[in-house]
Each structure stands twice: as structure tokens, then as C-alpha cells.
């Protein structure tokens, strides 16, 4: 037997050349569409089928291409159709043959290409149904199940094919790979497709026309935004590490020292003499902030404090104020409270020197006769406002780069049986 064998179609008489004679099981005549027994020396007709609407495959039969560095001839193609919500969706599958390496398959749907190998020799871990499938070090998530029908066939197939054949197909995705199970839970043939870009396909088959932008997002199409998002994510981790380092440095190296603590009494009704001047106290080091804390024992009452930080040497004063105001009670909604017994004020860039603090409390005309309060002065208090702002600013590029990733995943899963599936993070990284 020569490997390439010439026959004529017993139905229409057109010449038929078997490229994989000895391995092909069925052949569909390119002229009349009859399905013939490729194992029979007379090419017995298995199925007469007039080509009602001849489909011109985008890769013509007989085209030689290069798949993973090996030459293959395209020897057959079939159109496979599924019906979803009453709408037909068809894709094309191609049979590729090399007399030493055997068979490899291609599929194309709306410009999305996959190079497919049969997995007869690989063990998949699968609990059946829509549960995830484990193969090698990847987990594949169920994408879609369908009854697929061979709606058109042309050329040679290494299995018994009839136009109209129905098969159950389950697809599981882990981009750039797609696992497909054909058959029932009990008897399943697995194959694995690898997403291949139109540009790669055009180069592999030397058909520039294949390099056409695909429509929509395909089940195992690698997320094109993922690379940038992961790079930003990695950078973000470093920046956050820097952020934490700066935060720690601020906490460790700011001198934060208490320079004054004083307990005082506010006496109601005393017009003069409630004001006190505290200090002097020493502020040292570089010009830095000073924080004044006030805590009073107000209870359903308020106290306002007129404050001044006075440079003892020059007499220059920085005026500021604070207020403690605390109310509470019970109403139909239960207990309530409002305000606080504490307040603080931060003065920035106070140079070193000797200082006095003037405290002038003022209150309501009536109320408790005496209210105790405490004044604390701290020097060089770390300020964390910058850190919260920086953390928010750092999150902006993360959000900007992950947003398109999520959008792409949503469009992918909209085509699946699991619309609205929440994206599991991190999506698996495409192989290099």
C-alpha cells in the first residue's frame, strides 16, 4: 500500500486522493459530499450527502503547515454545530496529518484558533459533570456543555464519521488551554486545545488571510490585560513594602516626647483667674510639631479653651483654640451620646526654644461649679495622614490595571453556562 492512494468517488466519479491511506477511516468527497469508507478498497458509500451549502474552509485541504516545529498536511475538516437558546453556533475542526507523528487537530470559531491534541494517554482527575478537572499541574473550570452535531464534512478522518453525528461535549478552561470531553461520564475521550493567535496561525500555515482579528472573547483566550496587571501588582507589593518601611521608620525615629502635663480646675462664675500660664518648658531639636491634648470632665456640658504658645525669649504667641463638649442621655431609641471629653491641636514647625502655654477655659454661665481638665503637650509627634493618602494613591494604578482584567473575564464567562460567575483570583498565568 502506498501511503497516498488515488480513487474515484463511487457516487459522483470525482477523483479522491487519500493522504493518510491506511489510517483514515472515513473520507467525505469534496465534490458531492458523500461519506465513504476509506478502509474499503472500493470506497463503499456510507452516506450519500449532497453538498447543499458548500463551505469553503479557511485552510484549504492539502495545505501544509508547521505545528510545533513539525510539518502537517490538512487532510479533513468538519463543521460542528451546537444550538444554544434556539441559535446555531458553528465552528470548524481540521484534521492535520504527518506520516510519522500522526494526527493533530485545529478548531476555529469567529477567528479564535486552537491547536488540539487527543489525550488518550493522559490521565485526568475528574469527578464527572461540571466539577473541575485536574490535568498535570492545572485545574480546568467547567465552561460549557453542549450537544454538538457534525453539520458538514470534507476530506479524511481517522474515525468513523457521519454527517449528523451527535456527541456530548464538555469544555473546561484554564487559559491558554481548553480541555474537551466528548462522550458520557462513563466513556470519555479527552482532548486539549491550546489557544493560538491568528498571527501565529497565519505564520504556521503561510496563509496571511488567517491573521484577522477574532470576534469576542473565547473560552481559553489568554487575558491580554493580565500581564500588565500582574506587573503593576508586583510593583505595588514592592511599593507597599517601602510604605511599611517608611511607616516603621517614622514610628521609630520621630522623637515624640511629652514636654508638659498639667491638671487644672475650671471654676464657674470666676471671670478672671481661670486662665493659667503653664511652663516654661523646653522644645529641642529641629523645627517640628507640637501637639496639645486637652481632656476635661465635662458631662452634658462644654468647655472652650483659648490657647497660646508663647516664645519666652521673643514674647511671640501662636493663638489657637480647642473645645471639649460631651452630651449624653436616653430617648425612645435608647442611649445616645454626642461629642467627646477630648480634643487636640497640632501646631507645625515650631522651632526649638523655651515656651509658655497660656490656657484660658470658658464655659456656660451655669453648671457644675468645678470641672477638672488635663493639658498635655507633646513634641515631635509622628503624623500618619501622609501614609493614608499614599496608600490610597498606590491603590489607584492597581485598580486601573485590574479593572480591564475583570472586564475581559466577564465577557469570557458571559459566553459560558455560568454567566455571572465571580472571577477567581488569581487567574492562571499563561505558559511562557
Amino acid at each position, binding site marked *: 500500500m502506498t501511503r497516498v492512494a488515488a480513487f474515484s468517488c463511487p457516487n459522483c466519479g470525482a477523483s479522491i486522493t487519500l493522504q493518510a491511506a*491506511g489510517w483514515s477511516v472515513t473520507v467525505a468527497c469534496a465534490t458531492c459530499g458523500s461519506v465513504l469508507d476509506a478502509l474499503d478498497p472500493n470506497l463503499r458509500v456510507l452516506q450519500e450527502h449532497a453538498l447543499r451549502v458548500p463551505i469553503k474552509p479557511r485552510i484549504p485541504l492539502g495545505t501544509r503547515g508547521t505545528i510545533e516545529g513539525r510539518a502537517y498536511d490538512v487532510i479533513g475538516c468538519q463543521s460542528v454545530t451546537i444550538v444554544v437558546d434556539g441559535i446555531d453556533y458553528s465552528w470548524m475542526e481540521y484534521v492535520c496529518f504527518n506520516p510519522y507523528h500522526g494526527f493533530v487537530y485545529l478548531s476555529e470559531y469567529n477567528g479564535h484558533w486552537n491547536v488540539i491534541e487527543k489525550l488518550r*494517554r493522559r490521565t485526568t482527575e475528574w469527578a464527572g459533570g461540571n466539577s473541575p478537572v485536574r490535568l498535570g499541574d492545572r485545574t480546568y473550570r467547567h465552561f460549557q456543555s453542549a450537544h454538538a452535531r457534525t453539520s458538514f464534512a470534507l476530506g479524511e478522518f481517522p474515525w468513523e464519521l457521519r454527517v449528523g453525528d451527535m456527541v456530548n461535549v464538555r469544555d473546561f478552561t484554564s487559559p491558554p488551554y481548553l480541555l474537551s470531553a466528548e462522550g458520557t461520564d462513563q466513556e470519555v475521550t479527552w482532548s486539549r486545545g491550546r489557544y493560538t493567535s491568528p498571527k501565529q496561525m497565519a505564520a504556521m500555515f503561510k496563509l496571511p488571510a488567517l491573521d484577522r482579528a477574532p470576534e469576542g472573547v473565547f473560552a481559553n483566550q489568554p487575558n491580554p490585560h493580565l500581564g500588565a496587571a500582574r506587573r503593576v501588582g508586583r510593583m505595588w507589593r514592592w511599593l507597599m513594602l517601602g510604605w511599611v518601611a517608611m511607616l516603621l521608620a517614622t514610628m521609630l525615629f520621630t522623637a515624640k516626647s511629652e514636654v508638659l502635663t498639667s491638671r487644672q480646675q475650671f471654676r464657674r462664675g470666676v471671670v478672671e483667674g481661670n486662665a493659667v500660664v503653664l511652663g516654661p518648658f523646653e522644645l529641642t531639636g529641629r523645627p517640628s510639631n507640637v501637639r496639645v491634648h486637652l481632656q476635661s470632665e465635662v458631662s452634658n456640658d462644654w468647655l472652650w479653651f483659648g490657647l497660646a504658645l508663647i516664645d519666652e525669649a521673643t514674647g511671640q504667641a501662636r493663638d489657637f483654640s480647642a473645645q471639649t463638649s460631651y452630651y449624653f442621655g436616653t430617648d425612645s431609641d435608647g442611649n445616645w451620646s454626642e461629642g467627646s471629653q477630648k480634643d487636640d491641636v497640632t501646631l507645625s514647625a515650631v522651632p526649638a526654644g523655651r515656651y509658655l502655654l497660656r490656657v484660658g477655659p470658658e464655659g456656660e454661665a451655669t453648671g457644675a461649679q468645678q470641672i477638672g481638665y488635663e493639658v498635655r503637650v507633646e513634641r515631635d509627634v509622628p503624623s500618619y495622614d501622609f501614609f493614608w493618602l499614599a496608600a490610597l494613591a498606590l491603590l489607584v494604578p492597581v485598580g486601573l490595571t485590574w479593572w480591564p482584567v475583570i472586564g475581559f473575564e466577564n465577557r469570557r464567562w458571559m459566553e459560558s453556562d455560568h454567566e455571572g460567575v465571580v472571577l477567581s483570583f488569581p487567574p492562571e498565568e499563561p505558559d511562557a
Partner: protein
Amino acid sequence: MTTPTTPRAACPSCGAPISFRWAQAVQTTCDFCKAVLVRRDLDLEKVGQQADFPATASPVQLGMQGRWGNRTFTVVGRLTYEWARGRWNEWYLRVSDGSGAWLSDAQLEYAITTEMAPGRPLPDPSTLRVGDTVQTDRHRFMVTSITQAQYLGTEGELPFATADRSLCWFVDLLSPDGTFATLDGSETPPLLFSGDYVTWDEMAPVGAREFDGW
């Protein structure tokens, strides 16, 4: 590598010289008259006549040499099987460590196997179904496919004399760790062959068949 040995012998049918590639071969087929010859001591006895060597599209051929792991092999014989939807070959290999093995080429997917002792009784292949479990002392296999086939003819040298052409069962098995095995129902009890799937490139074949244009 097996050293070709050439005990002087002549075909009892046509007188053509018969040379063996492998000293322990039991059966061979005369290249000229297709007589199937079985060695009885020093003599060759014609036990049958083959119409023609069964045609094959396999790239493997007699005399081809290749690698199997860290061993090398030479193809010395062929047994061709036919089933409802095609044919495949089991090529008999003489391996560099002195053993024999089989290379199958069904669907151009290659597997090299050797006979294994199952360590426990094997089920009757005709009772198995796809998905069933077959337990040996070392593996828990799952049935992946079942084929009924008969041998169509032979070529070259084989370690046994072929005679029976009845249909028998072949059951392919796969274990969770990827070990591959075949249950061969041509004998009772069935034989268990186990081994490795190999790719064409892994075999690094020398002296393979050449195809025009490839």
C-alpha cells in the same frame, strides 16, 4: 543492539536463503515466496503460506533501529491486526539488554510494551467494559478502550509461531499515574503487556520508512 546472526538456511518451499536477524527467532516469513516458516531444531518447516505481507502505512519497518529509554532496539518482526475500523501493527523488537518487546503503532500513537506478571488472576477480557477497574499487584488500572481484532498476517521474525486467526479481545488500560497496559485475550488466561507511550522523536529512529514529500 542485536547482532544480526545468519545461520545458513534455505526456504523449504522455494530454496531462497533465509537469514535471521535474531538467533532465538521461532518463526519467520520467506521474503520471496511468503512461506511462513517455523524453526524446528536446525530445520525450517513451512506451516503456512501468506498471500502477501499485510499492507501498512506505518513509518516503522523491519530493520529500523531506535531508542527506548536508555536502551536501543531493532525491529525484527511484525504482526498485523485488523479490527472493524482499521489495522495496526505490533512490531517485535529485540532490545539491547537481550530482551524482547512490542511496539504498537495504532493511529500513529506509539507504545512499547513487555509482558508483565500480573501477580493475581486477570479477568476474562470479554467480560470487561470501559470504565471497569483491573487490579494487578502493582497498579489499579481503568479500562479505556476495548477492541476485538484478529491478526491478519506477519512479516519477519517472531518469538512464537502464529497459527490461530480467531477474533480476540484487546483491552487498553490506564492507571492514575499514567502507566499504560494492554490485556491480550489471544491466550487463556489473558496476557498482560505494560510499558510506555513513546513519541516518534523519543525513539530517534534510524532506518525508518521514507515517504515521498516528507
